[in-house]
């Protein structure tokens, strides 16, 4: 059962009429263009189409390699590279040289170069 009130129904029908009142017609020029495009696609000979794929792929790969090379060169040339050489703690200690040959520290906290205690009574 239709429960819509007559006023609402009238508004609804009027909106439908408005919506139906605009449209487009088939444009013959568009069909001519589409037809020419399809015919051009179909005219491309098979072997040529087959050859175009690896050529396209090789072209893309060459572009990628060139772009990667340029990016890498640019990054290396940038001034924000670290101004010092990065070394590990072990490398640093070894490079300071005397560490391995150094005298072992004196026992009982005696100053280096002090006479050793003979152990006898004074």
């Amino acid at each position: 059962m239709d429960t819509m009130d007559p006023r609402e129904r009238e508004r609804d029908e009027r909106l439908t009429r408005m919506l139906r009142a605009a449209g487009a017609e088939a444009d013959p020029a568009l069909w001519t263009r589409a037809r020419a495009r399809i015919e051009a696609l179909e005219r491309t000979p098979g072997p040529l189409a087959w050859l175009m794929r690896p050529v396209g792929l090789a072209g893309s790969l060459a572009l990628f390699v060139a772009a990667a090379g340029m990016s890498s060169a640019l990054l290396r040339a940038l001034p924000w590279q670290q101004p010092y050489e990065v070394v590990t703690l072990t490398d640093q200690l070894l490079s300071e040289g005397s560490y391995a040959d150094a005298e072992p520290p004196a026992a009982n906290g005696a100053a280096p170069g002090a006479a050793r205690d003979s152990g006898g009574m004074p």
Partner: protein
Amino acid sequence: MEALGEVYRMLGAAMLTLARSMLRDRDEADDIVEEALLRIRRAAPGFRGERGLRTWTLRIVANLCRDHLRRRRFSAGPPEDLDPLEAAGLRVEPVAEWDEAMDRRTVLAALERAIARLPAEQREAVVLRDRLGLSYEEVAATLGVSEGAVKSRLFRARENLKRAMAAWLET
């Protein structure tokens, strides 16, 4: 090729009405329809006729329009003061039951602006059902959704349009 020409003769107006109403830009819509014809040509061997030629064809156009709108999401879109019918390439159809007290072009320009403000899913439903006259079943098949979803989208679309067009609907 002759078969494709026949498809365009039969359905070209519907394809263009859908694309122009969805995109509101005549040139972009024409490019979409041209692309749709190429796809129809490629997909023709797989056509089984389960959904009917009109539904199948309009589905291709609707999908292309959706993809295009997705890509265009961040662009500014046409300016408000532009004549929306002219920009979209839509013409005013002679309608027998038009209320002669209303200036047809002004009303339809306002209606196009209101349609343009609808979300895309409501817009495609209202164009397919109310402008092209497809059945609920055909709209559902074209959009790849259930009939329930179509009815719900249409209800919301029409409520939005009634609000936007209140001044002309009350006269």
